């Protein structure tokens, strides 16, 4: 399941609701990865644009892969502005087996960073500044160059 929110994530609500929804489903391991915006280099926060159609198909592909291992994925992400010390991103794996779960959360989060069509901006003096240096080109980049 993929949830998108305007502004920061309500971490306590999301994690508690997800836990309540899944605890009776006989997964032995529930592993959330919670991203919190760091106060660094003078930013006031981050801001995000998301291209939802491709994000959804990317997520659905990972969900199918997880299901083949009897695991399940959950994800929440912010759109728009997210102040320092609040959360913009949660990914979670549910798995019957610990080792499968630990491998999936690692691989899912790493591929998220490389592939999810989300653009990040630093919030500096009320302006959005594209975080170009921290961004990664998608596969096939430069095709029209």
């Amino acid at each position, binding site marked *: 399941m993929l949830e998108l929110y305007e502004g920061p994530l309500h971490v306590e609500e999301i994690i508690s609701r997800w836990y309540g929804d899944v605890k009776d489903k006989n997964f032995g391991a529930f592993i959330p990865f919670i991203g919190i915006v760091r106060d660094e280099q003078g930013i006031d926060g981050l801001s995000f644009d998301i291209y939802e159609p491709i994000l959804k198909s990317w997520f659905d592909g990972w969900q199918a892969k997880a299901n083949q291992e009897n695991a399940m994925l959950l994800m929440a992400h912010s759109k728009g502005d997210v102040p320092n010390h609040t959360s913009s*991103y949660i990914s979670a794996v549910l798995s019957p087996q610990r080792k499968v779960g630990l491998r999936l959360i690692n691989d899912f989060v790493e591929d998220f960073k490389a592939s999810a069509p989300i*653009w990040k901006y630093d919030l500096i003096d009320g302006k959005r500044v594209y975080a170009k240096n921290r*961004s*990664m*080109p*998608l596969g096939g980049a430069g*095709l029209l160059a």
Partner: protein
Amino acid sequence: MASVEFLGPIGKEPMEVDIQNLNELKAIFSDDKSLKEWLDICAIAVNDSLVDSLDIKIKPDDKISLLPPVCGG
């Protein structure tokens, strides 16, 4: 006419183009100074699937998207 959208930080209005394939779009863009810094680093999607060949046929209702480098999370 196929539509072209410029995602994320590119900050350019969508446009419509009359083309048969992506080679023709490349030719159109080669004169566009506003895209100079982006073409090297953008991936291309046709109807929300990433593509890796300029020979892809484009139909009149197709949606073409330019996706700059990403950084979620």
